[in-house]
């Protein structure tokens, strides 16, 4: 998995490529918390379009991002969910808890 950050105005976009699982979910968590808790970026957007698979530990990292965003009053957004990622959030009853969009344009609007 590779995670890299882009900055557009006051929005940070994380582009994630590859599977998110136990091997790398701590890295995702760290990147999210840094941006939300330390940098206090008002909007953090996860580009999930290249994430084929996300496991329960990856979902846990996203939930931590969500919690942190609520703590600091920022928005935390996901877009481009694959069928597998969508299923996992649905199974976790989190699909409606996250702010989810189809594509980047919607996520940045």
């Amino acid at each position: 998995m590779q995670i890299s950050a882009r900055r557009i105005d006051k929005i940070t976009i994380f582009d994630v490529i590859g599977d998110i699982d136990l091997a790398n979910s701590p890295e995702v968590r760290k990147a999210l918390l840094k941006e939300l808790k330390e940098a206090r970026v008002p909007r953090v957007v996860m580009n999930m379009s290249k994430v084929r698979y996300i496991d329960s530990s990856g979902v846990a990292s996203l939930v931590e991002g969500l919690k942190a965003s609520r703590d600091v009053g920022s928005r935390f957004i996901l877009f481009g969910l694959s069928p597998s990622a969508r299923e996992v959030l649905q199974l976790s009853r989190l699909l409606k808890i996250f702010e989810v969009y189809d594509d980047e344009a919607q996520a940045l609007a």
Partner: protein
Amino acid sequence: MSGELLLKLELRSDPSMLCVVRGTMERLTEVLGFSAAECRSVTRAVDEAITNIMRHSYKNQPHKPIELQVLRLRPDARSGRGDGLEFLLCDRGPAVDPAKMQGRRLDEIKPGGLGLHFIRQSMDIVEFKRARGGNLLRLVKYLQPATPGEAGKRRESLADLGPTNR
């Protein structure tokens, strides 16, 4: 019940091996004729079971042995069961307290506690036991329910998934 051994996989408890096991499972379920959604669901269950072994049974030590056997279950007229797959996962970790084997309530929003839910939501049978100095997790997934009763049971446990999962 015991079936024909399709595959046996031995690996270490290194998290970077998880994606290798998923690669194996994705193809195996595809070859066996599962639907795309079922392939994802079975792959996810096996992945989460191995993740749990790495995290809980081995407490993140990366060089411990994990064994996965996949058996093909043939349709059985007597029990009315259809074609299926049996997954046997063995580790050499300490005995597990069955009372701890429990996910979190799904209406709380907090990190963690999802793996067992994913496993139960995917599989028709989930059984833990202590055997020969190790832990054995047995998962069974039927390919097509052979009896209406079985079909009903399966649909019920998947009732809250909505249309995209099936």
